[in-house]
Each structure stands twice: as C-alpha cells, then as structure tokens.
C-alpha cells in the first residue's frame, strides 16, 4: 500500500487535534422564539452537559406534558467524551501508520460517528416530542412536539431551530478536510507515483 503525502499527514494530525475542541465548546444548539420571547431562548448541547435557558424551556414545556430536560436524561453524556478522545487517538495513529487504507478507515469511522450522533439525537427528539404526559394541562390531539433535527419548525406558538454550534461546525470542517485529502490521495497524489 502507498504511503501518504506529507500534506495529507499534516491535515490528519491537525484535524485530529482539532477534535479536542469538542471538549470545550458547545456542539449543537436549539433556539426558540415566541411572541412572549422576542429575545429568544437557547439551549446548547455540550459533550457532557446542556446549558442555556433549560429551566425556562422545561417550565414552558410542562404545559404540553414534555419531560423536564435534565442532564441525567442523556446517558450519552457519560461516554461521549471517550468516543471523541478515541477518535483523536485513532486519527493520530492514522498519521503514524501512514497508509491510505488507514485514512479511508478514519474517514468512514468519523462519518459513522456523525451519523450515529444524528440518529441518536433524532431518537431522543422523537421520544421527547412524542412521549407526553397524558395528564398535561394542554393536550392537542394528534400534536407532537419533536424538535427539528436540523432547520426550523413551528411548534404551537414557538418557532424552533436546531443546528450545529461551534463544535458541530468544527466537526463538519474536519470531515470535509479528511474527505478532501482522501480524494487527493486517490485521484492526485496516487497517480503521481
């Protein structure tokens, strides 16, 4: 198997180290607006925590029977940072192994992690939006309150937006960068030799 280009290896190292930022910046955000909240409410999802106007959102959502959002709702918080650290390690190992198959493996692994995270988030959102307290003060027949996976959605008097935060964008760029160097390896550097 072919060895990797120097630039590719540098990109892999930088991308791997950049993933460490996930431990220090919010990964995802949910923003909400309503007539009574023109300034908006926000919820930030971190690697092991949620921050923002969580109490206010929970207090409002209890009317329609949604659960109180609490850190303990998310078992993911207990192991997500180990996954990220493992990815960092595997990334650096890839640069060390210095083989195209290793890079391809890394790209696939990160893609799979990203998809798994979104699926996990979707499932939580589905449960949060559908699994309602039947004795809630306000029950709208047929209505579910699943937050949007990505993008904007109207939920009763609230406009809700869901999308990546700083950490999410960093991950997205890491993915793009790794795909780019993989493509370069296959279609450019690969043919030079």
């Amino acid at each position, binding site marked *: 198997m072919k060895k990797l280009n120097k630039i590719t290896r540098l990109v892999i190292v930088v991308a791997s180290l950049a993933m460490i930022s996930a431990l220090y910046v919010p990964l995802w955000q949910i923003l909400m607006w309503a007539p009574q909240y023109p300034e908006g409410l926000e919820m930030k999802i971190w690697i092991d925590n949620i921050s923002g*106007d969580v*109490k*206010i959102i929970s*207090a409002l959502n209890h*009317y329609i029977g949604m659960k109180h959002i609490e850190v303990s709702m998310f078992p993911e918080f207990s192991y997500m940072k180990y996954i990220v650290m493992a990815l960092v390690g595997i990334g650096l190992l890839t640069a060390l192994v210095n083989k195209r198959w290793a890079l391809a493996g890394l790209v696939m692994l990160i893609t799979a992690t990203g998809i798994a995270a979104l699926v996990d988030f979707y499932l939580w959102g589905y449960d949060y939006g559908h699994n309602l307290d039947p004795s809630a*003060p*306000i029950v709208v027949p047929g209505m579910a309150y699943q937050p949007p996976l990505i993008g904007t959605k109207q939920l009763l008097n609230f406009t809700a937006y869901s999308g990546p935060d700083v950490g999410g964008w960093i991950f997205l760029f890491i993915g793009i960068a790794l795909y780019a160097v993989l493509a370069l390896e296959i279609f450019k550097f690969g043919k030079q030799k």
Partner: protein
Amino acid sequence: MKHNRITLFIVLGLALYALNGCKPKGPAGVTTGDAASKVYVAPGQYDEFYNLVSGGFNGQMAVYGLPSGRLFRNIPVFSVDPTSGYGYSEETKAMLNTSHGFVPWDDLHHPAISTTKGEHDGRWVFGNANNTPRIARIDLATFRTEEIIEIPNSGGNHSSPFITENTEYVVAGTRFSVPLGENRDVPISSYKENFKGSISFIKVNPETGRMNIEFQLRTPGFNYDLSRAGKGPSHGWFFFSCYNTEQAYTLLEVNASRNDKDFIMAVNWKKAEEYLAAGKGKKEKVRYAHNVYDHKKHSATSTIMEEVTVLDVMELPDIVYFIPCPKSPHGCDVDPTGEYIVGSGKLAAVMPVFSFGKIQTAIANKDYEGDFAGIPIIKYESALHGEVKKPGLGPLHTEFDANGNAYTSFFVSSEIVKWNVKSLQVLDRVPTYYSIGHLCVPGGPTAKPHGKYVIAYNKITKDRYLPTGPELTQSAQLYSIDGDKMQLLLDFPTIGEPHYAEAIPASLIKDRSVKIFPIEENEHPYAAKGEKMARVERKGNDVHVYMTAIRSHLTPDNIEGIRVGDNVYFHVTNLEQDWDVPHGFAVKGATNAEILIMPGETQTLLWKPLKAGVYPFYCTDFCSALHQEMQGYARVSPAGATTPLKFSTGETASQK
C-alpha cells in the same frame, strides 16, 4: 346705492373679524405642527430619558419616559402600597418604622440621583420625607426602596436630599426650627430664645450606598427651604436658602415677609469635617430609626439609633456665612461650573446671582455688613455677580443647560424664563399651564447637563384635561430647548403632586436593571427553594406555610388544621427564574393586602382568620395560560379543634 351698501357690509364684517382677532389667544394654539413627531416614541421603541418624578403627598416616586411622557412605574417609598404589599408584608413593614412607630405615609418632594465628579452616575436616587423627617435611597438596578433613615432634631425635612459632587453626603435641612436639646416642652412664643435649626450631613458609603448621619449643624432659628451643593471650584461648600429671618411663629405669610432680605446660608462642610475630626462635636441623645432592606434575605430590618454628633455653628466660627437674598428665597441653585449661585426670592422683583469667587474674596477681606446670632453676613454687593432684571413674578427654581443658560420657573406669572447666566439677559419666555412649581432639565443640576428638554411640573391643570370632578390630575409639560425659542411639545398627567424631578439618559440605567433574584442566593429564613421544601409548621398559635409558586400552581394548595385564633404566615417563594414572571398571593378576608413576589423572592402575608370555614387563596398576577387555575384552599377549624395539620398539592381523595 346698492353697491355702497354691499361695500359697507363687507367693511363692517372685516372690521368685526379683525377686532375678534385682537382677543388674546387661548392656549390651544401654542404647540406647533411638528410637536407630535418630536415626542412620538414608536411602539416597542425606548425613550431616551428616564424621568424620576416625586409624588408629593402620595409618598411615592414615579418613573416616566421622555420624550413620550409614558408612565412605567410608581415606586412606593414612604407610603404603604397594598398593590405590591410594600409596608404590609412582614418583610417590608420595618421599612416604615420610625421613632414614632410605624408611619404609613409621607410627603416626598425631591429626588436626587447620585453623582460622581458632579455627573449623574445612575446608581441610586434619594428622596425626602417632608413630614416625619426621613431620607430614602432607591436602588436604580431594582427600582426599589432599599434604605430609609430618620432624621432626628428636625422639624420637617424640606431642604433635602441634596447631594455633594461625589455623593459623599446627602443633606437634610429642617424646614421648621424647633426646640432642640433636653427640654423641648417650651412656650411657642419663646421661639427666638429656644428654637433652633438643624442641618444633617448624611454620609453615603460609596460602595453600598448605606447612609449614616455623620454630623449635624446646629443653626440659628428660622426656616430652611432648599439647598444645593457646590461643585468644581465650590466643591466643599453647600448653599441653603433661608426665610423667616423675622423669626415669626404665627401668621408667617405676613410676619415672615417683612424683611427686605433673608439669607442664603453658605456652609463650608470641609471646615465642619475639620472640627469633627478635632473632636469639637457634641454627642446628643436622640432616637431615630435606620431601616435597611436586604435583597438576599428579602427582608428589612429596623434599628433604633440613639446618638448624633452636633457642631454648633454659632460657637464654631468659619463653618457658616450668610449672604443677603431678597424676599424669602426659595430656590438656591448652583450652575454647572459651580461658580454661580442663583437665589430666587419668591416675592422679589429681581433675581440675584452670586459668585462663589466673590464670596471667597469677601470672606477673606471680612467684607461683612453685620452678623446674625454671631454669624457674619457678607455684604450683598460683595457677593453679587449681578441681578436678572424683570425676570417675571414669583421665581422658584432654576435648572441649567450645557450652553451657559438657565431656566427659571415662575409660579405667579406661570412661565419658564430662559436667561444667560453670565450676561444675565433674559432670552426667551414660555407660558406654563398653570402655575409651575419645579422644573427639570435632564442633568440640569449636575456639572454635565444633557439639555434637550425642560419639563414643567405644574400645580394647577384646570381646563387642560377632561374634568374628573373637583379633584383634577396633576401634570407635567415638556418643552424643547434645542433651538433659541423654547417650544411646548407635550402635556402629560402625573401621579400625585409632582414637586422636583430629575431626568437621566436611559443608557446610564437600563442595562443594569435586575431581571430576577437568583433563587440560590435567597437567604430568607422561611424560603422554600423547591417544591420538596414546601410545608406547613405549627409553633403554638403561629402557623408557618412555606409555600412555593411556579406556573401554574401553589404548593401546598390544600391546607387543613388551621384554627381560629391562629396567626397564619404565608411565606411565598416564587420559584421562577425568568424575567417578568411575578406571582401574587391573596387570601379571602385578609385585612392587610396582597403581596407580589418577584422571581426568586420570598414574601410573607400574615392572615388571622376569624371564623371557621374553607378559605380560597389564589395567584393575583396573571402569570400564564393557566393563571386562573393557580389557586388553593385553606380549611379553618374552630379554636381548640383537633383537625390534624395537613397539606398537599395534587393529592386527591381517590389516591389516599
């Protein structure tokens, strides 16, 4: 012929029309076409200035926006407020404690916004109680009364609460002279011999704003009216207007108007501080209350103080000098440079402007025309910068803009007169409707006036608004002072009787506004900082309900085991941590008031049920879509009944 007759009719008609045009115009025509656009603040937009307006006999201070004249809030200060529970809740009763006991009312005349280097800093606003002498401090982050200090040795706290350049001191001068010292039971006719004036210097802690009476000046017996601190070159001095130098004690309107000139009293308070440091003060036994509200404990405490230090200016030279000022001066205002002091003799034909520099020279040269009670009287001409000639009738108060101009209110001629401080020339005059008292230019009493507007606070409104029986609204009027000519823009009604007011740029206050009280910082001894802590405890005849309020239920909302004869304390904690979600609490038959509880706060309503039965209670502040469901029941059993003490929320008979 016919032609001539037609001509005659036309000429006659024109003549009658012209004659009618000579009649004086009513006030209807005085605003010009663009006035509305100058005061229009579009829905959702903010005003440029806060206007803090005294409520006079309502004992409150109102908060308006300028230029719109919209009312935002009415802050209870010296008067009980059943709406919020101020003065009724167990936590706030102590705020209105005095050496005379609980005083539920007073007469608030003058707000004074704190200053740093002579400029508004927007931290606190002080207000005076004119009747039972007190000074209050309102925090401009919470817009709540945080502290009230009673003034001993005072008979009516009118020349107050004026502040020094860096809010080192707030002063409280007595309006009435009264007998002071050990024996106060003296004939009224012994005024000259026994009655004395008293000026308190209240030190303000620069960090916390806490007040304490540092010293009092014992002064000659007559009336002290208004005052202003020096600034810039005159920092370290204070100026008070004095009337009744005749020392009359009856029918003052005649007997106190005889002297051609009364005094402006110049006080060198730095000198007084020197005497104080040198131990020249005499400790006197007095009694006065000092009440402080704590925003962590959400409660006020009242402490009775028992001593003040008095410096007698008739014995200690060089603290006080008198400057003759014509005819019962009222306003005594210092211009932004600190050099000029304007005296407004209520009955005088001219307005003297004194020069601080000349006063200093006169003192250095001992340029005196005599003394009063041993205190030197500086020669009028030696202190005088000049007189404003024919300014108007009944000058009262003067405010300033940043361009060297002064604006004086005239009660009798009902007008504002603009004049130049240096040249003393009258520049413009506008009528007010009617009989203006105080007036206000944003930043007008400070070293840095913001100008733009002058606001008139009128004593009479008569035909200006739709009538409401014999008792009519009080009012303010907003004038633009941007151009050479003052222009009337807006009339707006006010709450209570407005005396003095100050206006300050909104930017100095609005971003510091407190939105909630953090629940984790709540140190109230009866707080329930979560529904799990909600409970009911009996201690003898006292029943303490640790209640929580959150949208949209009270916990507990079913209470049993209360007995006739019990004192039931509802300690309600608002668990919300979101802006603008207060809850209220009221119970049927409560003889006091309701309480409003802000997010994170605890307030207590005492209830003494007199009859057995089931009593509803509910949230009074429309808090949510299910506000009308936010209610509960308290069961009261006869005295001596054995109904067990029970409390719950959400528990129904079928669950038991």
